[in-house]
């Protein structure tokens, strides 16, 4: 089960994820990204502090938007990744492709660079 909430703070669009993202629930993350694109966001911060589990289906959502975000100059930063989840990012080397910050302040700083 996953719960996704979105919030706008100044010019940053926050996507806050709680729970598990697997092959059954990754569609909700995908919808949140689609929504962000539709509303023309240019800075997206994904709060993963309460994400306990992510499988390739969820990681695939992040990867599938990278090309479009780069083309449209949309900045994406993930933050607050728990250690167990972080090791999964590391196995795939995703930190080389996706901006990752320790916490919300770090994410805001990166988005405002």
């Amino acid at each position, binding site marked *: 089960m996953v719960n996704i909430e979105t919030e706008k703070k100044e010019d940053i669009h926050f996507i806050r994820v709680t729970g598990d993202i*697997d*092959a059954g629930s990754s569609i909700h993350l995908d919808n949140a990204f689609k929504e962000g694109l539709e509303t023309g966001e240019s800075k997206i911060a994904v709060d993963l502090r309460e994400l306990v*589990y992510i*499988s*390739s289906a969820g*990681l695939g959502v992040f*990867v*599938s938007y990278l*090309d479009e975000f780069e083309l449209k100059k949309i900045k994406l930063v993930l933050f607050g990744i728990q250690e167990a989840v972080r090791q999964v990012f590391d196995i795939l080397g995703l930190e080389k*492709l996706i901006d990752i910050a320790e916490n919300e302040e770090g994410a805001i700083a990166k988005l405002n660079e």
Partner: protein
Amino acid sequence: MSKSIVIACSKDELTRIRQFVADQLDHHNIPDLQAHKLVLAVDEVCANLIIHANYCDPTNKIELDLQFNPKQIIFTFRDKGDRFDINQYDSPSMDELVSSRRQGGLGLLLVKRIMDKIEFSTEKNYNICTLVKTIG
């Protein structure tokens, strides 16, 4: 010692199989971070079998057997869906995935990087996929 579970080929069953594997690994004192990766590998194989080999047909079943040996854990999956041999599947590169904007393709790469051995065979009407992880 071995423990088994049977699930229906529905994505809703993934939570149950992850919980089963996590409980067994915890019971055998596998450290949390390692257990998390093993649960993930099982989840990825099950998701593949459910979606690509059994087309999310809940009347089809997957049986998972966990065998704990002193130096290795053996995960054996049995199903009667289409044959899906992980070893014959070439994982796309990350660059290819990014430029194609595809969401699939990372799962089997994870399984290959987490597990030490992956075997595939068929026996009577069953496909048998075996994952081996060396521990200790």
